[in-house]
Every structure is written in structure tokens, then in C-alpha cells.
């Protein structure tokens, strides 16, 4: 069968094009500023990856469009916010150990609470609408309203300033380039999460079954695996990732507000569409594209920053409608 140039060299062309595109801003941006923007873009990309990977896995395996992911993201931020308030001494302590310890406590608490919320959501409402996208959108949108209102009831309706562990708010000066520590931490968190997800998906039997389920869930069931238990587990894991993303993003932006999920959910959907539904690597690449292009364009043409990602999404959809790394289905 004859193949087109794009089919033969598609991946190489994409990588070469990406390198050219990301070096292109150097024409209009001084070198040091470019590096600062690149680190900021990578950090933003990694944070978006944390949110988008959950959306992608949930859609890829369960075929569920989860609009409540944004609200779960906000819950993660607020649970972390509460832990930071309770352990203020550790947050403000001039101790790397105490700062990281309080961050880890907040992280575990946020992920556990939100994973539990995810399990309740999946078992109580989402299980009833498997296979019905319109109902999924409506019911998860309804769940979003309830979850956001619950935030207003429990934590109040106003924006709050997120307290940041002291170590995280400092920066390094490397050859006159200011590198914010927390941005580097975000990049490291993103890489660790990507590594853990890849390990689970590629090296464990459970992960292999999940990947098989992304391709053909009927067949996975017919092979003796309880797909519904798997769905609940995946939804809880996706919710946990949303919580991690919410906490990390709230430290990044230094604020929490009840509606914060909706802003980042839009970015997450763009990332998932660019990367390919169901693909974790696709989510990572998509998130980095979105994070970097947003930061470069925000510097060069501030008014076009938000629109550039939509433009990239449209171009990729035209060239490759299934996204850069399509998985299954």
C-alpha cells in the first residue's frame, strides 16, 4: 500500500517542526528571557499534564467525558490549602525538610480525599450513564455545580491567598538567570508522575489490563476481568491526579477560588485533544506544547496568548484528527 510522505516521516517531521517552532521565539526574545520563559512554560506544561492525564485516561478507558474533573481539581487545591493552614508553622519554617514534609502531607490528604470523592461520583452517578455522552456531560456538569457549591459552603465564597512553603517561594540565580525553585519542583513532579504512570501502565499486569481496556473493553470483560472495578479504580486515580494538579497549580498561582477548576479544565481538554485521547505520553507532549507556546506568545503578543493554543489544536486536528499519540479506539 502506498504511503504518503507524512505517514512515512510523520514523527520525524513533527519533532523537527516542534524544535523549529520552539526555537523560533529566539528571534524576538533575548536569550536569558527565553530560558526563563522556557522554564515557566515547562512548569506550566507539567501542571497541565497532571490535570490532563486524568481526563485522558478516564476518557480513553471509560469513554466518559468528565466535566467534574475541574471541580475535583479545585477540591484538591482546597484540601491542600486547609492542611497548610493547620500546619502553618511547618509551612513558614525555614527548613527544607519541614516544607517538603507539609507539602507531602497536603498532597497525600488532597489525593485521598479527592480519590474518595471520585469513587463516590463514579459509583453513584457516572456508572448510570456509561455509553451516553450527552448524559455524561450534563450529569458531570451538574456534579461540578454541586462540588463547587460545597467548596463555597465549607471554605467560603471568596478567593484566598495560597500560603506557599518558604522553600518553594525562593529562587536560584544561575548565570544571571532567575530560576524560581517551585517551577523546577513542578517540572520534577510532572516527570515523576509521568514515570510512575508509565511504570504502572507498561510494567504491571494491572496497567496492561488498563491499556487493553482502552482498546477494547468488551474483550477485557470476556477475558474474565471485572471492568467495573477497573473503572472505579481508574476514576479514583484520575481524580487523585486532578487533586495533585489542583494543589500544585494553586501553589504556582498562589491563590485558590471555588471556580478555579473551570479555567484549567479548558486547557486540559485542549491538551488531551492535541495529545490524543487515552495516551499519557500524548498528554505530556500536548501539555508541554500548550505551556511553552502560551508563555512565548504571552511575552511576544500578549493579547494572542489564550488563542494560540486553540489555533494549535485546530491545526493538529486538521493534520491528525486523532491527536499526536492516539491510543486505541
Amino acid at each position, binding site marked *: 500500500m502506498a504511503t504518503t510522505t507524512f505517514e512515512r516521516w510523520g514523527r520525524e517531521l513533527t519533532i523537527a517542526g516542534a524544535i523549529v517552532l520552539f526555537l523560533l521565539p529566539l528571534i524576538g526574545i533575548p536569550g536569558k528571557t527565553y530560558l526563563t520563559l522556557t522554564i515557566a512554560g515547562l512548569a506550566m506544561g507539567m501542571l497541565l499534564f497532571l490535570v490532563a492525564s486524568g481526563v485522558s485516561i478516564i476518557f480513553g478507558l471509560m469513554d466518559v467525558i468528565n466535566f467534574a474533573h475541574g471541580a475535583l481539581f479545585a477540591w484538591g487545591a482546597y484540601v491542600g490549602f486547609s492542611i497548610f493552614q493547620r500546619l502553618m508553622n511547618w509551612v513558614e519554617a525555614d527548613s527544607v525538610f519541614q516544607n517538603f514534609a507539609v507539602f507531602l502531607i497536603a498532597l497525600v490528604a488532597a489525593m485521598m480525599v479527592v480519590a474518595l470523592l471520585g469513587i463516590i461520583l463514579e459509583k453513584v452517578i457516572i456508572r448510570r450513564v456509561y455509553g451516553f455522552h450527552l448524559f455524561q456531560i450534563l450529569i458531570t456538569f451538574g456534579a461540578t455545580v454541586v462540588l463547587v457549591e460545597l467548596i463555597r459552603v465549607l471554605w467560603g465564597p471568596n478567593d484566598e491567598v495560597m500560603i506557599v512553603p518558604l522553600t518553594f517561594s525562593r529562587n536560584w540565580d544561575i548565570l544571571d538567570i532567575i530560576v524560581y525553585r517551585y517551577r523546577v519542583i513542578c517540572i520534577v513532579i510532572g516527570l515523576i508522575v509521568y514515570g510512575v504512570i508509565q511504570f504502572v501502565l507498561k510494567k504491571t499486569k494491572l496497567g496492561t489490563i488498563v491499556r487493553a481496556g482502552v482498546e*477494547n473493553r468488551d474483550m477485557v470483560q*470476556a477475558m474474565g476481568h471485572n471492568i467495573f472495578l477497573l473503572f472505579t479504580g481508574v476514576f479514583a486515580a484520575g481524580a487523585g491526579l486532578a487533586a495533585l494538579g489542583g494543589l500544585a497549580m494553586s501553589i504556582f498561582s498562589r491563590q485558590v477560588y471555588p471556580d478555579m477548576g473551570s479555567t484549567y479544565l479548558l486547557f486540559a481538554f485542549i491538551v488531551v485533544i492535541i495529545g490524543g485521547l487515552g495516551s499519557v505520553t500524548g498528554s505530556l507532549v500536548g501539555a508541554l506544547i500548550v505551556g511553552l507556546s502560551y508563555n512565548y506568545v504571552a511575552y511576544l503578543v500578549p493579547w494572542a496568548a489564550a488563542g494560540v493554543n486553540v489555533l494549535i489544536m485546530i491545526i493538529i486536528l486538521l493534520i491528525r484528527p486523532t491527536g499526536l499519540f492516539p491510543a486505541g479506539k
Partner: protein
Amino acid sequence: MSEAILKVEGTHTFIGQHHILQGISFDAKADAVTVLIGRNGAGKSTALKTVIGLLPSSEGRIMFKGNEIQKKKPYEIARMGIGFVPEDMGIFANLTVEENMRVAMLVEDEATAQRLERTLDIFSDLGKFWKAQAGILSGGQKQMLAIARAIVNDTSLLLIDEPSKGLAPILVDALIEAINQIKEYSVVVLVEQNFYMASSVGDYFYILDDGMVVHGGLMEDLVNDEELKSKYLGISKAAE
């Protein structure tokens, strides 16, 4: 006569508003291959999907080893010892051959390892492509993988849907040989339109027409019944 391991009694199945199975009854006897034959749209594939639980039956009873299974979920039915090979083979194309087999293994113990060895003896090609992505396999190799996945567990009943579809004659012969080996340790229910294959492996047959079983009996009787073959299967002596 040997005992039936599977009994389907008066089963009705709807897909959406379409009444596909209209009270079919058939059974699969131990130590034998039972073939469901019939024209396109007769309900053969629906019958297998109903047995494995992927399509719910609205009426009737399905008994496997004396237990009712028509209300059970597909994974519960599979865990009782029923393997299923769908018409599209259901290969996980992005997984390697090894990963496809691992997903299929419900328990990874010594007995499974022995069954895997036995399976790779039957389908030796799979060993050569063990680390390759299943998506790159040829149609015949994918079919072998699909059947191998279904017999790597302690499967006492194997449901296979049109395994010869789209395969070259030489591969069909290989498949016949493989099924003849598999029937030594597993009961097989086969859906097949290729009469050569059906008659080569089948011990018993059921002809389905418009969602109903219209005839059943010994395969050797069907082979010699020109009228029945012509009426329901569109096979004339000249065409054979």
C-alpha cells in the same frame, strides 16, 4: 451419548429494538465441536455474545455445567471457564503478543505456564513475534493469537466466531488442524460460514435462520443432505 456442557434454552436477545434471537435452543456436548451455521444475519454471532454475556438475553435460560449463567456478567462467565474469540478477533493492537497473552492469563501459575507452552506448540508463529506489537501481525497470526488467548486459561468451553473469515485456504487448513488439537481438552462451539471448515472440524451442527434454530444433528448427516445445504446454506453439489 455424552453429556451437554452448555445448554441454551428458548433464548431471546434484542439489539436495540431488533429482535435478533427468537427463542433459540442448542447445546454443546462434551468432547465435541458444535458448529452454528447459517446465512449472514441469522443470529450466529449474537448467540455466542449472548452466551458469554456481552449481550443480555431477555428470556430463556443458559446453563453451563449445570449452572444458570444468563444473568451473570461477562467476566464472571469467563472465569467459570468459557473462552471467547470474537469475529473481529478482539486483538489489542497496541499491546505486544506477550502482553496480549498476559492480559488473558487469569492466574499466572505453573499450570498456566504449561498451558502456555502447549498453546505455543500449537501456534508456533506466536513465539517468533512474542515481543512484537500485535497490530503488525497478519490476519492468520492475529486469529492464532485470539484463539491462543482463549485457551491459555483452564477453558472447558471455547466459543469461536468465524475464525476462517478472510483467511487464505492454506491458513484455514492450519486452523482446522489447530481446532482438532484444541478439541482434545476443550469443548468448542464454532460459528462458521465456510462449510469446508465447519464440516472438517464439526461433530454436531445447528442451522440458524432468522434468529431461530431450524435444524440440528450430526455433521456427517448434514454433509450428505444436499437439500438442507441448498435450502439454508445456499450450497449446491456443483459448487462443492
